[in-house]
């Protein structure tokens, strides 16, 4: 009952591989965190997450605000009803700054992208995100683990047992895989190959993202891949420094989103957009269409629930998205009443 009086904030991070939900209390402590597989169905994952939160916390907390981040942040904001929608880079930086206030460099490897964030005097000073290639991200590791028939949780441990890592060409995930297969056929041990892979990914990460920039301690490593001891060891070797892995390393995006929601709701008296835990029972469908009204030929995405268009996006002129915004506000306020 204590929590209900103080109020809590929800953060949701819909990524390509995982969908994470975090509930924090007024002081920014995590009450509940969920790490779910997106499995290509973000709406289903979100509904599962919300209903799980409903079971564990539904009666005892009062959600005062919600924030969304991740590549599916716009979808999350419509489906769950969020007060703030922010990109992953900002969310990750805020979360890291909260847990490790003196952090200078944030290493983050997610499902489909990797980022490096430079922090100076508590402000994001610069950042980089992989541009033309997604080699060296969570999905690739997942796939290699599956191919070698090793559970992803133990994948990194194997790397630590290597005595002489092989060198893997890590520029592109597809070529890295064929190089790995080649090394396998040549008779190298699985441990040496996994260790070589970890080193290749780290080398690729540093070469692509940190080019020409100053890497200063302390380093914080977050994202699902931070659980991989092999990658952590490879980072420590490459950077010749200690790597800090924060407490909530796997749900930092959602944590950051929750912190931002809290910040926003505390600034002014807003009425939250959060649709309540009931949304797990609502049906959502997504439709896409091409708008042929001008030469841009934009691909539109519409989110529909009970025959009402909650939101649409993808248009450059704002004709459709503006329409969607109005109806979304109406339907969300209806849902709240």
């Amino acid at each position, binding site marked *: 009952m204590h929590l209900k009086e103080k109020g809590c904030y929800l953060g949701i991070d819909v990524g390509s591989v995982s969908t994470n939900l975090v509930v924090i209390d007024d002081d920014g402590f995590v009450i509940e965190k969920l790490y779910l597989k997106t499995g290509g169905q973000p709406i289903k994952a979100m509904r599962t997450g919300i209903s799980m939160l409903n079971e564990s916390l539904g009666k005892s907390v009062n959600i005062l605000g919600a924030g969304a981040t991740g*590549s599916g942040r716009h979808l999350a904001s419509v489906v769950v009803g969020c007060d*703030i929608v*922010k*990109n*992953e*880079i*900002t969310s990750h930086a*805020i979360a890291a700054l909260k847990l490790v206030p003196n952090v200078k460099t944030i290493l983050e490897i997610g499902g489909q*992208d990797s980022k490096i964030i430079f922090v100076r*005097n*508590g*402000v*994001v*000073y*610069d*950042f980089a*995100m992989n*541009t*033309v290639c997604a080699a060296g991200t969570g999905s690739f590791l997942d796939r290699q683990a599956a191919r070698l028939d090793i559970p992803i949780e133990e994948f990194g441990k194997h790397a630590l047992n290597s005595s002489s890592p092989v060198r893997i060409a890590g520029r592109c995930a597809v070529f890295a895989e064929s190089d790995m297969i080649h090394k396998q056929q040549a008779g190298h041990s699985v441990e040496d190959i996994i260790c070589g892979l970890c080193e290749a990914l780290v080398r690729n990460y540093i070469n692509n993202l940190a*080019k*020409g*920039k*100053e890497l200063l301690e302390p380093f914080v490593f977050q994202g699902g891949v931070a659980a991989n001891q092999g990658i952590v060891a490879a980072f420590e070797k490459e950077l010749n420094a200690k790597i800090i892995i924060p407490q909530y390393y796997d749900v930092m995006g959602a944590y950051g989103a929750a912190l*931002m929601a809290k*910040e*926003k709701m505390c*600034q002014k008296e807003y009425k939250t957009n959060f649709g309540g835990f009931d949304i797990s029972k609502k049906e959502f469908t997504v439709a896409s269409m091409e708008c042929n009204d001008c*030469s*841009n*030929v934009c691909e539109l995405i519409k989110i529909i629930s009970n025959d009402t268009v909650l939101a649409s996006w993808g248009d*450059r*002129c*704002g004709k459709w998205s*503006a329409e969607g915004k109005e109806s979304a506000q109406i339907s969300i306020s209806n849902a709240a009443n």
Partner: protein
Amino acid sequence: MKLTFPHMGNTYIPVKAMLDDLGVNCIIPPFNNKKALEIGTKLAPELACLPLKINLGNFIQAYEMGADSILMTGGCGPCRFGYYCEMHREILSDMGVDMKVITLDIPGNDYNKLLNNVREITGGLNIYKILKAVKNTVEVSKKVDELERLTFKIRPREIHKGATDKIYRSFLYSILKIKGSRNIKKHIDKARNKLLEIQTDKEMKPIRVGIVGEIYTTNDPYSNLYIESRLGNEGIEVTRPVTVSGWIIDHMIKKALHLKGDERYKEAAKPYLGTMIGGHSQETIGNTVLFAKDGYDGVVQIFPLGCMPEIVSESILPSIERDFKIPVMSLIIDEMTGEAGYMTRVEAFIDLLKRRREIDAFEGKGMLSWN
């Protein structure tokens, strides 16, 4: 002869004005879109840069509309662009597309070739008429750039969001129906007056971002995913020093007459890049330094994947970033660019700039507000 020419941002406006004045029948291809890029990607070598691919798409679309000749500019800079008209000619003839490619090149010594080309386009050599048309073209291109600069100023300050975009977009479409430089100039003035009527917040001090990089991708809104309008609608004032009129005046006319243009950027770039290495890399470096000295909040560099001059600039920019403490973000574009990832970077960059300004405003103490 039905002449067509490739799109590059607003270049079509001055070029149309010139061809109208010269009495040449011209066909303007549809504005750059997915279709044009798809056609170009199919025809062009895989590693050719985005501008070449879109150009090819433009030509094929114009051909379908009835065009039979192409007007291109050449160049002798070390960037691959100088060779593009030859590439276009070869690719189109391989495809069995029967189009004549006319290259307007800056003459070294051989003025005859240029004159022959001009004669071919205009169907005669009335020097007085041509000089008048050139003068009007320069005026139109200057006016177009001024109009664009005005949208950069008004967009972040407008009170009703989207007002600038609406007027500007309808201007870009309606100009296609207007003939002759005189009418085009009038039309630009009309659009300018309409823009000036937009209600703005006069007190606002928007975040200022400079846009540098390769000329095609910075000038063409389709290729850079409308970055100027997006930044503007987020309340950011953008400045882009490399423009169409600058290119026509400095690179075509002044070079042909051996006159000197505005070269402040060269002086500014000196400590980092002392010589012209092709493309617009020296401009990119020099203008970034000038922006930093001018107190801008950030710089965005845009270039197509594989653009050699800009890759050189990209590797120099971190030292400017360090020396002047100005954030610089590089965006690389090709037909594989995913819009979602691109927008994530732009959004994060905006957050970064806003946050830095907030910290400055509170003398380094800063308050946490990310909204």
